[in-house]
């Protein structure tokens, strides 16, 4: 999608809001919204109230400029004017609270980022072996190249002590499996879990703590 369309559209619609020289402003897309949010306290009498007035949203044009106070014939009740002048603020408030709500929904993830490893640890680990152990990108790519059913020693040549172990589990009848876990250095809430059966490497998986 090119930018030419929306820009020219918004420029048409809001041209009365900003001076000519702004037309070259690279950020003009954002200019109209800001203007709408803070209606001019006193509309300058010279400002051209444009042809667009007919199709513009109500909230934009219901403020006093629509009926100049100097008209003696038509009385504009004060109350309505004040209410109308306040309505954009109400919408700003509504918009703001919606943004805040959205931020609340989206936000918590990055905020608790640091705690992630610890929650992940609780979910994954049974016994901590080496707290400083992490898996680097280079180690990970070497590990991915190892075939399932390779000797356990092949895997351990790449990665030293695990961060922790999980409880032994019997998946196949008569064979106890050992499991070890490593947090990724570059993404600590993701854990690399590896499973051995005796001296044989069975496979790996990633565990995402959410």
């Amino acid at each position: 999608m090119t930018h030419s369309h929306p820009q020219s559209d918004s420029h048409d619609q809001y041209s009365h809001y900003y001076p000519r020289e702004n037309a070259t402003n690279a950020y003009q897309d954002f200019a109209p919204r800001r203007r709408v949010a803070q209606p001019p306290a006193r509309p300058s009498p010279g400002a051209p109230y444009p042809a667009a007035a007919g199709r513009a949203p109500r909230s934009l044009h219901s403020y006093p400029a629509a009926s100049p106070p100097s008209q003696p014939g038509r009385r504009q009740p004060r109350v309505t004017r004040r209410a109308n002048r306040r309505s954009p603020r109400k919408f700003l408030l509504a918009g703001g609270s919606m943004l805040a709500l959205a931020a609340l929904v989206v936000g918590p993830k990055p905020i608790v980022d640091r705690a992630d490893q610890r929650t992940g640890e609780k979910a994954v680990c049974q016994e901590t072996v080496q707290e400083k152990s992490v898996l680097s990108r280079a180690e990970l790519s070497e590990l991915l190249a190892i075939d399932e059913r390779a000797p356990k020693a092949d895997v351990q040549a790449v990665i030293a002590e695990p961060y922790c172990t999980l409880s032994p589990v019997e998946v196949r009848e008569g064979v106890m499996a050992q499991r070890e876990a490593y947090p990724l250095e570059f993404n600590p809430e993701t854990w690399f879990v590896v499973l051995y059966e005796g001296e044989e490497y069975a496979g790996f998986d990633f565990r995402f703590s959410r």
Partner: protein
Amino acid sequence: MRSRLPATALLFKTVSLLGLLGLGACGLSQAQVPTRNIPVQQGWTLQPGSAIGGFEVMGGLGDISIDLGGGQIKAPFDGQLQPSDRDECLAFTSPEVPGYLFRLCGVTKPRLGDVKAGQVMGRSEVLQFAAMRRQPDGTWAIVEPATEILEKTLGQSSEDS
């Protein structure tokens, strides 16, 4: 009146926004769970889903058949339940048991997607359970499942039995 009108608008907007968010969240959680291909290392002719004499094969060599009589099937670990390339079978995998896959055939009303250990994954009259171990060539070899895993899948801890 004049003070109530914007407040109503605000309320309306907030409610509609909440509704939208809720809708979005539902859409996310019910997103399509990708189908899992399960190439079996042992290339047996008759497998679940094959036909013989015009009848459907429910379980093949290596499947443990359990008469559940409509009972529940539970997740043995935190993991994911996915549909498989064969309509009547599901694949359960868990990052807690890397290198393994459990194939469950004959499950009704499956709860696809992420499941927690102990959570109901569906029901079954006769469950066909196969434990599969990943091979270097990407196929899955059917192996004998440990009874502990089966007990967990049937919703019983090993202390019960």
